[in-house]
């Protein structure tokens, strides 16, 4: 393809070699392409198709057009779920701010690697294990509330994971705790690649910590920040399931239900396969849009 512009004689010379490379090449590519297509793309396509049917696996699944989607967007529960997802997106600015702050603190500090390790540790803890720790920690009579009561802040000792108004902010904080480490790793590396004389020059010109960081560091860190931002948005829509599974099971009621949790519950507990498939399509669209934005940002950076 790239050599296609060559003149006829050189094409004839090149053709045999190209054919050999292509043939052996395909065998290199085959396992990865086959597995991803068969196990990811085809099931997803099937799911999308069946979102337009009244899906009853094993029996006839008649076409129902947009009925599942109409039911979805007409339902109060789904609207609540969308509100939940929107709230959970607070994770993005929250974790970006904390990660940035910590990375800046760590800049040029002795023993930074040890601290970075400490901040990164939560990212390596399986959600099930960390979730169990938080369930005990935040229990109504658990250590966190006991500590609050011990210093006289009885009013603040709430049911963090059980109160419908508190469960989402609590989740955002827990998710921030878990994902800040990744941001610190990404941002620290980006910071380290910046020429130090830039900061020295600014400092010698009398700029304070805030000015230096706001006007110089921040724009230079933009690519890394954008990358981390996109990762965090994907975190909210793709990787929150295990936390919901261990911490809240979507409850109380539907106050902490995410879209993917609802798909799980709708299909495996209630047998509403068509509805679940429709919800999966919604996630696909949302993630697709986010990825496109991410790619656009990346291209803008290169341009």
């Amino acid at each position, binding site marked *: 393809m790239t050599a296609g512009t060559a003149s006829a004689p050189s094409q004839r010379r090149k053709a045999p070699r190209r054919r050999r490379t292509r043939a052996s*090449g395909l065998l290199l590519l085959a396992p990865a392409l086959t597995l991803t297509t068969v196990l990811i793309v085809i099931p997803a396509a099937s799911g999308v198709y069946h979102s337009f049917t009244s899906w009853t696996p094993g029996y006839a699944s008649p076409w129902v057009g947009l009925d599942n989607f109409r039911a979805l967007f007409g339902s109060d529960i789904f609207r609540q779920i969308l509100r939940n997802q929107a709230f959970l997106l607070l994770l993005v600015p929250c974790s970006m701010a904390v990660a940035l702050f910590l990375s800046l603190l760590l800049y040029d500090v002795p023993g930074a690697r040890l601290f970075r390790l400490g901040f990164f540790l939560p990212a390596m803890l399986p959600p099930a294990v960390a979730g*169990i720790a938080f369930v005990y920690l935040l229990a109504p009579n658990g250590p966190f509330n006991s500590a609050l009561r011990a210093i006289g802040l009885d009013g603040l000792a709430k049911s963090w994971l059980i109160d419908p108004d508190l469960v989402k902010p609590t989740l955002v904080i827990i998710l921030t705790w878990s994902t800040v480490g990744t941001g610190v790793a990404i941002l620290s590396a980006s910071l380290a690649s910046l020429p130090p004389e830039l900061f020295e020059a600014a400092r010698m010109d009398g700029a304070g910590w805030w000015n230096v960081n706001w006007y110089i560091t921040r724009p230079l860190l933009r690519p890394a920040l954008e990358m981390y931002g996109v990762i965090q948005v994907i975190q909210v829509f793709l990787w929150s399931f295990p936390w919901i599974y261990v911490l809240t099971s979507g409850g109380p009621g539907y106050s902490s239900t995410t879209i993917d949790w609802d798909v799980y519950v709708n299909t495996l507990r209630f047998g509403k396969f068509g509805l679940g498939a429709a919800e999966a399509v919604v996630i696909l669209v949302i993630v697709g849009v986010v990825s496109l934005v991410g790619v656009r940002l990346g291209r803008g950076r290169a341009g």
Partner: protein
Amino acid sequence: MTLKAAVGRSRSETEKVTRQKFSSPKTLKRSSLLMLLIVMSVPFVYPLVFLVGLAVKTRSNYVHEPSGLIPKQLTFDHFETAWRGGALTGPLLNSTVAVLVGVLTCILCAMPAAYWIHINRGRLSGMVQAFLVGLMSFPLIAMIIPLFIVLSTSNLNNQIWVLGVVYGTINIPFAVYLLQSYFRTGLDGAVLEAATIDGAGTYSTLWWVVLPIARPAIGTLAALTFIWTWADIMLAAVLLQDPDHITVMMAISQMAQRRESYDVQLGAAAALIALVPVLIVFAVAQRSIINGFAGGAVK
């Protein structure tokens, strides 16, 4: 002035500033910075420390001081009970099989694919790369339910090795991304050309030349895939419906969900047992992992 000269000049100036730092109020600033960092890192480490404390206290110590951080009396009984009960050995074995199959599948598929993308640079290769790497942000919930249905009808559900292959497949995108960027910066075209001139075919070059060079990247990849796969809940919860065939993460979450009869200390011990493999892998590979995450942004 050249960059080299600028760097050289600023280095001596940095030394001057550093010398000033240690003999002025800046020292106070530095130690208060360290204090701040220590305080800020406490919440990140505390939950794990707390879990350990919980699992290690004797029963009476827990009853009297459930929230005390320092255990007054130590015991390993809870670990023994969690282990002896047998509720963990099956799931641990299942997790191990699933993860090993997953890591193997992932590397065996991604390595040649990344190599192909590298040596066939061009429009087609770009499209293949975009496809494979783009799948990194694919919402798995959209494929796991239909996959579950297909597997159920062909009687392949509740099989650990099937779960393993699925694990491997969903990690291929990230693996290709990692290996591919490693090749781009670390695989010299001259080395590959030399191998071809010496008469090596594509596969020999892959095995004898590329593989040894890529070993660090493969190590990081194996470690990360291990950690993520070991921690997985969603795929296991969907594909393994049979309570006799669950992974260890599912086992401990189910233990924690049975709130009525729930033994908090036993649950903590079980969770820690389930954590050990992750800690081992992380301890061995932590430097390359953290650097691996960083590598993507520095470009």
